[in-house]
């Protein structure tokens, strides 16, 4: 090795520069590309079959930190390291520093855990801490925390940002789950699904059946398109037939949403919802990918607010209990989702909500006759 590094002739030096330039060009599109021995040979810089030369060149480049060796299952390969990065190694003064920096460098955006570094290098805690401290003062590495485990000491190269896994993706702001953001986005997704997957009935229909004597013309002029459509649609005999039984007053109610006919193909899919969110520009600065939107939709499905509906290969989403949904398009936080929440015998007072239900028995400390919840409820 001594001999090689000392006595690098001009030809070798030229070849080295050529090889590096060729590699740089080859991986211009994909900076993370790995080069195996075959790849390097195929670049046509080294004379064919001159393995010795190749070996020598690789050795030189690796020593100069321009190549970073990577172990793959199929064997050894090299990743190109930019010259600016390689220059940083020159600043390192001790062997420990080099080793530590190598590990942190290799860990890339994921970062390296301090314990992990220690285990891999098998060095004293003091030595490791010293090396890290020196690297930090040279502004080569910084410490950061991941959302997965906030107590772990993690190190990353100073010039790159932690990966989305470490930061938690769009849902985290400064290592904290941004619940308000998620909530807001959920309601955007919800209103999108609600709007695209249902029919808004404004309730004019009820008004019309209450006073069937209204002149037809008036309706068409006065009401929105829906009423007009309805009145057109119904044949004369259908009207006479329907109006004969008294239209119950309860029919007359506020705006509701109605289900769409079976076989409706336009229930929004994840792609459409993603596009809708991007178009609405509600999440500026946090580009939401489809998988993130899918997460939001899954949550809504689990919350029983939305259901999946399959039409062949198309997986769309629509709101559940559509006619009971709060018909307004945008719900403010804290609004009820349904204007008629579901309930049953065990959700209501007195026993359904009783905190001491398990203790309750005849002759026990709590019993039906002396129950204060019953008192309140019956009063």
């Amino acid at each position, binding site marked *: 090795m001594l001999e090689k590094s000392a006595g690098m002739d001009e030809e070798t030096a030229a070849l080295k520069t050529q090889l590096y330039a060729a590699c740089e060009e080859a991986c211009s599109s994909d900076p993370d590309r790995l080069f195996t021995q075959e790849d390097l040979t195929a670049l046509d810089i080294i004379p064919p079959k001159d393995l010795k030369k190749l070996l020598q060149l690789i050795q030189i480049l690796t020593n100069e930190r321009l190549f970073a060796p990577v172990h793959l299952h199929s064997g050894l390969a090299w990743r190109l390291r930019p010259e600016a990065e390689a220059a940083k190694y020159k600043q390192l003064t001790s062997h420990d520093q080099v080793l530590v920096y190598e590990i942190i460098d290799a860990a890339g955006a994921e970062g390296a855990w301090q314990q992990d570094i220690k285990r891999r290098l098998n060095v004293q805690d003091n030595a490791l801490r010293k090396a890290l401290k020196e690297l930090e003062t040279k502004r080569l590495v910084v410490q950061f925390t991941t959302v997965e485990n906030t107590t772990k000491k993690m190190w990353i190269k100073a010039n790159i940002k932690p990966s989305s896994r470490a930061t938690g993706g769009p*849902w985290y702001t400064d290592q*904290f*789950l941004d*619940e308000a953001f*998620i909530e807001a986005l959920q309601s955007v997704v919800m209103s999108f699904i609600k709007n695209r997957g*249902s*029919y*808004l*009935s404004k309730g004019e*229909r009820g008004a019309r059946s209450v006073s069937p004597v209204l002149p037809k013309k008036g309706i068409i002029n006065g009401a929105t398109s829906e009423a007009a*459509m*309805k009145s*057109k*649609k*119904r*044949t004369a*005999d*259908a009207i006479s*037939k329907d109006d004969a*039984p008294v239209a119950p007053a309860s029919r007359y109610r506020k705006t509701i*949403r*109605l*289900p*769409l*006919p*079976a*076989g*409706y*193909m*336009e229930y929004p899919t994840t792609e459409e919802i993603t596009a809708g969110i991007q178009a609405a520009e509600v999440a500026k600065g946090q580009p939401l990918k489809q998988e993130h939107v899918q997460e*939001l939709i899954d*949550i809504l*499905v*689990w*919350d*029983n607010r939305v259901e999946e*509906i399959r*039409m*062949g290969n198309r997986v769309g989403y629509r709101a*559940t*209990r*559509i*006619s009971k949904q709060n018909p307004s398009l945008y719900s403010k936080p804290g609004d009820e989702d349904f204007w008629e*929440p*579901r*309930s*049953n*015998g*065990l*959700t*209501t007072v*007195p*026993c*359904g909500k009783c905190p001491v*239900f398990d203790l309750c028995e005849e002759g026990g400390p709590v*019993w*039906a*006759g002396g*129950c204060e919840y019953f008192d309140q409820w*019956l009063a």
Partner: protein
Amino acid sequence: MLVTRNAADLCALLVNELYGQLASRIIAALLARGRSNVRDLSLHTSLNPKQVRHGLALVIQHNLIFYQTDRETAVTTYEANPQAAYHLVRVGKVLDVIGRNYGVTARNLVNDLLMLGNVEIAELVRYHRLKHGRKKAAVNGNDANDHGPGLDHELDNGNADDPFDNDLHHANGNGVTHSTADNETPIQVDEIYDTLAQLIAAGVVETVSSTMFQSPQDLKASIEQECTQEFPNGVRGAKVISEFDAMVKSQIKAIGAERSMTKRKLQESAMYEPSNIKRRKLANGGMSNGFAGDSGGSILRDEPNTIVRLNFDKCLVELRNQKLTEHAEDFVGETTAQVYAALLASLCKKVYRCQHDQHTIMTEEEEETYFTGVRVTTEEVFDHLSPDVDVSSGIGTASEEHIDIRFAEKIRKYPPQVQGSHLQETLDAGDEILGSDDEDYDATGERPKTQVNGNGGWTAHNGTKSDGDYSGEGHSSRIEQIYQMRQHLLILAEAKQQFVRHCGHNEWTVDFGTLIQQLRYAELDTMIEDNFGRQGLRLTRILREKGKLDDKTLPAMALMRKPDVHVKMAEMEMAGFLEVQEVPRDNNRAANRTMFFWFFDEARTLRRVLDNGYKSMVRCLERLEVERYKKRHVVSLTERKDVQGNEEQMLRGDVYNEYLELVDIEKKLFSQVSRLDDLVSIFQDF
């Protein structure tokens, strides 16, 4: 029915409420001790044998127990029938639903049957005339037309009535109201007989045979015993065993056939043919006039000594239909629910029970419908649909190009879990679309032009076979209405809950088992969401879908903060909705080296919720007792025969107000019990 402590308490309380303390004590003892004879019973109830026998006669009369006499020892043992006792909680609902589906006379008849228990037809008719013939004018205040959701009906009417000496008693009771009732037209005997015939044909009322007093298990055992005598060499070897089994089976079939003989006869008499149901409905259920000739009533007249009783199995089917309709209304919409009600009404004409087990005795006809499933055509559904329902409403409009009828009209031949999943994959490409659907496209062209703007111009027009007997205009309107009604059915079929299965060309069926399972989940979800909020619901649903999950994956999936998740999970575990499993990573079992897996134990949760339901009902009834005790001076006054029915005139102002308060409390408690029963029904009986 699994009889937990709470369930047993509930049964005893219910029997007490309706049939008095004697019956209740016997039932309670039987539930606690299991099968007993008279001697044991008198020991456990601290009653003398004479009283016990009297009580037993009473509860047998009301089908609350089974009995079995051992042939050799001639000792009779009695066994409680908890299911029947529990059914008592539903009498209010049953009367309500019968009143709605079969008319007022039918409701009164059923009410009388509840009062009398097992009774001969002639006696029932006589009683009915005595009771309702004269006092139709709302004697009992709130009773006459406001049945309320609960038991309150019995409260006013039946509580203390002893069915055995009713004649005298009622004559006295009604004496007060003679003056008001005089102008009422007496009920025609024919009408009573006809209504009864109708009820028997529908299966709501059944004829009683001696085998019904044995529990199904006992019955099978005794038949087996009989059959063994036919094989003197013992039942050994495959061939003999199969012969023996066949023999037992045929005997049970024979019993089933015998039980339904009268029903069959009535069904066969022409006017109970399904095609007539609409006409009868229009005749206001009463079918008193215009149906002369060989009616069902005259068949019954010929056998006045036949004993009848109420068949709760069929009543449950009616109640289930009602509940399903309510759910359809909740999940889809009002109009759609009405269409669904029509579908269920026509579908369930042939469904006589909600659940069955190996001991259920079925006739061949029932067995057939059970195993092949029942189905109805669109036309049949339409015939059951009330003309008041505006089928054109309740569905949004969408433009034609957005609707793909290949999916809307998708036919699922097989019920979901059996072969469905496997077959559906293979059929996906388009085999499912029946060719005949395409033919019907042509018919759409004939639809009135006005339709195009309405519910979308989308096509797929089935069920348009014209019968020829409609005039031009009426015809088109009928086709149109069927078409619109069909859209509601398609929505129901498309719903996540699978309310309806489009099982063939223009044919519809309901897979009750899976549907009810869905509703169980829905009720459970409601409870969880109400108790633990939306996030609690989210977590349990994730666990239900994914199985067991550990502490780390759950927060990421639910997009919740880890501490929040932990708090919620612990809360739900305490309440019994979730379970946790600890898996140590090494032998030390230290907490930090242990993985915690959360999971949702469905069966256990359902059982727990069910028992909680029983317990809450028990608490309501216990509270009722306390309230009555608190106001005992009022209760004792209102129990006087001269006060009953005339509370407002007879009671002093302040006492009357207290009475009203008590009635109010009773109403509240009973309606709560009835709501709880809705839940129990879904979890257990439907």
